[in-house]
């Protein structure tokens, strides 16, 4: 019995040690702090919900690579690159029921070169919006042609 108790105790301590630091690490949980942004159907509404009413400037300081014609809408490779000191980067599209795809929160001094893949149901505009640490908004927009819709469509 004592032995069993002992192991239980050790297990609990180990569990706590694993769980405790991970909860601290989360800098910004955008799913919790900006729930309305994830529900927005249009890009413009999504930007407003996530970044507020600030003016968004089209800029070539944020560049993102995407194929002009995507054969498979289920997996479209996207690369975001920027030399600006950005705090938040978000990707919106008009193809899916809700427009926000993902939000990066960039640690200080990080190299901004992010590669990932998204789903799109149909041909639509994709907008990347970045917020600098002094609160300015920059964006870049591209149209992506989708021949076979992904996302179960």
């Amino acid at each position, binding site marked *: 019995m004592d032995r069993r108790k002992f192991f239980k105790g050790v297990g609990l301590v180990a569990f706590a040690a694993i769980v405790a630091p991970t909860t601290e690490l989360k800098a910004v949980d955008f799913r919790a702090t900006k729930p309305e942004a994830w529900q927005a159907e249009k890009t413009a509404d999504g930007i407003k919900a996530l970044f507020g009413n600030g003016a968004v400037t089209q800029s070539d300081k944020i560049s993102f690579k995407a194929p002009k014609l995507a054969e498979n809408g289920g997996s479209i490779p996207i690369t975001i690159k920027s030399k600006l000191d950005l705090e938040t980067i978000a990707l919106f599209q008009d193809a899916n029921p809700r427009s926000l*795809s*993902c939000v990066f929160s960039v*640690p200080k001094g990080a190299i901004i070169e*992010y590669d*990932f893949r*998204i789903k799109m149901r149909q041909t639509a505009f994709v907008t990347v919006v970045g917020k600098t640490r002094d609160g300015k908004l920059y964006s870049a927009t591209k149209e992506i042609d989708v021949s076979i819709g992904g996302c*179960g469509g």
Partner: protein
Amino acid sequence: MGKAKIKAKEKKGVVKVKAMFTSLMADKEEATKKGIEASYIKQIVASINGAVVYEISMSGFMSENPLLKFKTKGGKKGDKIEFVVTDNHGKSTTSKKKIK
């Protein structure tokens, strides 16, 4: 939620990381069409030596089995990179990998 495949390599102070996570990434609409429960990854946080180097929150409109690539200066050979993945049910898993 399944396993994560992680590759991390250091070269001249820059760590290149490639990571793939298994998830259906099915949002509400897609899940009803397929007749399954909605399941997608909500957030992925990567850290080296306790400092966050990468953080992404996402919706179900990322592609299935999300593949992420990024570069960071915050690590060197032998350090461990740690990924914490949270899904839409609030369950989180941690995976670690040594930087080569």
